[in-house]
């Protein structure tokens, strides 16, 4: 494989950064560590979300559904299978759900997809509640493991690294190219022979599987799993806000939104729990009216304008010198 030099440098820097972050639990604990777990959780989910929604411009609200499916994969089988096997089940369940949703909606225009994912988490939550009350006895399942916050943090960090590597590989592959064409102009994509529905479904499955794994990793933290908590629709909306605030043009764009917004939301939900909806509303409006390309996109545009300004001023001095 022919990899350009600057990409190798970025890759090295990213891995080095991840290695440094891995030492965090050794120097801190308690509140800061649990906040870091949250940040790492959203870093993984938002980057996975942007893998699909970035190039295709389809706003997926299915994150909470994938997350819950992952959590339940652990909750159901935790007493009979080792944890790595549970992760694999989460991968399979997340991908399967994504493929089913994709088959129903991704062959049609984008709006159907958004609407379908809007109620998806609530739907699965309802079905799980119904099954548990009618066939399972109690609502809720216990998950007891020996994992501490440190273990969760390391697993989520590893997941984030894997998501980034996957994103990088997808970008370099034919699939990534196909998706970029679809995102820019679907008619063109179809004319050059891209199977648009298939490309979207594959990537949606990849993205969904990662989010399900994040849900599986978080299951031990809740210890008592209920449908309402596992399939909380707020997760989906927070993911969309964070990823779009950061910007989805670059693979690392969502990270720029995740870190500050997780801290802000943690503060708000701790001190003013009734204001979270208002803050989320304002964040959505800010994304649309102030930062349509996210912080990273905005900076990039500014930077480019600056460069072209410099060039044009250079040109005028050259003219004057002549």
């Amino acid at each position, binding site marked *: 494989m022919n990899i350009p030099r600057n990409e190798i440098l970025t890759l090295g820097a990213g891995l080095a950064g991840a290695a440094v972050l891995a030492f965090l639990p050794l120097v801190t604990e308690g509140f800061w560590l649990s906040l870091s777990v949250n940040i790492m959780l959203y870093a993984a989910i938002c980057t996975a979300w942007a893998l699909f929604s970035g190039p295709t411009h389809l706003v997926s609200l299915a994150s909470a559904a994938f997350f819950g499916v992952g959590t339940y994969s652990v909750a159901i089988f935790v007493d009979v299978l080792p944890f790595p096997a549970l992760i694999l089940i989460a991968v399979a369940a997340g991908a399967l759900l994504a493929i089913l949703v994709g088959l129903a909606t991704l062959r049609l225009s984008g709006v159907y997809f958004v609407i379908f994912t*809007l*109620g998806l988490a609530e739907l699965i939550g309802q079905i799980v509640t119904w099954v548990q009350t009618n066939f399972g006895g109690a609502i809720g399942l216990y998950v007891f493991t020996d994992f501490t916050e440190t273990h969760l943090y390391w697993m989520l960090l590893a997941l984030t690294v894997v998501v980034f590597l996957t994103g990088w590989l997808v970008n370099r592959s034919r699939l990534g190219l196909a998706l970029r064409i679809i995102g820019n102009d679907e008619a063109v994509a179809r004319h050059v022979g891209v199977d648009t529905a298939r490309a979207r479904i594959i990537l949606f499955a990849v993205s969904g599987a990662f989010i399900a794994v994040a849900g599986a990793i978080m299951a031990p933290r809740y210890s008592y799993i209920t449908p309402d908590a596992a399939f909380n629709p707020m997760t989906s909306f927070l993911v969309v806000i964070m990823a779009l605030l950061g910007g989805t043009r670059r693979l690392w764009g969502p990270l720029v939104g995740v870190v500050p917004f997780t801290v802000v939301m943690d503060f708000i939900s701790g001190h003013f729990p*009734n204001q979270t909806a208002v803050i989320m*509303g304002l964040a959505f409006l800010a994304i649309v009216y102030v930062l349509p390309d996210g912080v990273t996109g905005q900076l990039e545009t500014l930077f480019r304008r600056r460069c072209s300004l410099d060039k044009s001023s250079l040109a005028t001095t050259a003219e004057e010198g002549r």
Partner: protein
Amino acid sequence: MLILLTGLLLGGTYTLIALGLTLQYGVARIMNLANGETLVAACFVTFWLYTGFGINPLLGLLVIGPVAFVVNWLIYTWLMQPLVKRAKNRGMLEVDSILATFGLLFLFQGLMLQAFGGSYFNYEFLAQPFSIMGNSFGLNRVVAFVAAAVIAVSLYLFLYHTDRGTAVRAVAVDPRAARLVAIDVRRTAAFAFALGGSITACAGTLLSTFYTFNTSMGVLFTMKALIIVIMGGVGDIRGAVLAALVLGLTETLVASLLDPGLTLAANYALFILVLLFRPQGIFGKRPA
């Protein structure tokens, strides 16, 4: 029989909600996901007027309808028109309007949560039995159905038998061609958006007479309205009416025969059937 009639009565209110949304999406091209919050806000205002001032909800319609019209007009001209202007194609407008109306959804929901809290509300209005074909129903449900039918029929007459209504339908078919025959597209779109909001608010007022409501149920109703609109075909009035009745029936059937906790699942089952077999709507023609 009881189930059938209950379903039909519920479908009447659903029709109005969906008609509001189909005007906003079909004509003004704004996918308004805050539609359900308009509905919930109307529920609370009706409750407040009735319990605070003793104003009959049916008279309340005369206040709430026009107020919702003005508020939605302002929302369209201040918040949506900039998006319409900047959008390069319909897909971009769709994404922008979805995100912007999410913003409104949470903003309104948050404000209502602060004003009224998260608990469930209801009030007693015409809570007496009324018998149709040997079965007794709440009179409030029957009155709500009749009022919804009156509003839906007047909307139909307006759209199909007046010049203004014809202009609205022309913009729904093709905004660019509408301009060629001297229709002020921007004004008509704003008008349709405002009218849609007003109709949804009326649906909220009627719903509150027989339904227990709270601040966070808006999204569920938006979801129902969206499914009805898609099932009936975007911009199709007859389709929306039929689809709303089907949805009301299916919900009542599932709730009374299986489990009331599965109504959303019933909605989704219909949605999936529509997506798989008739994504263009019940009366829609397959695009060439």
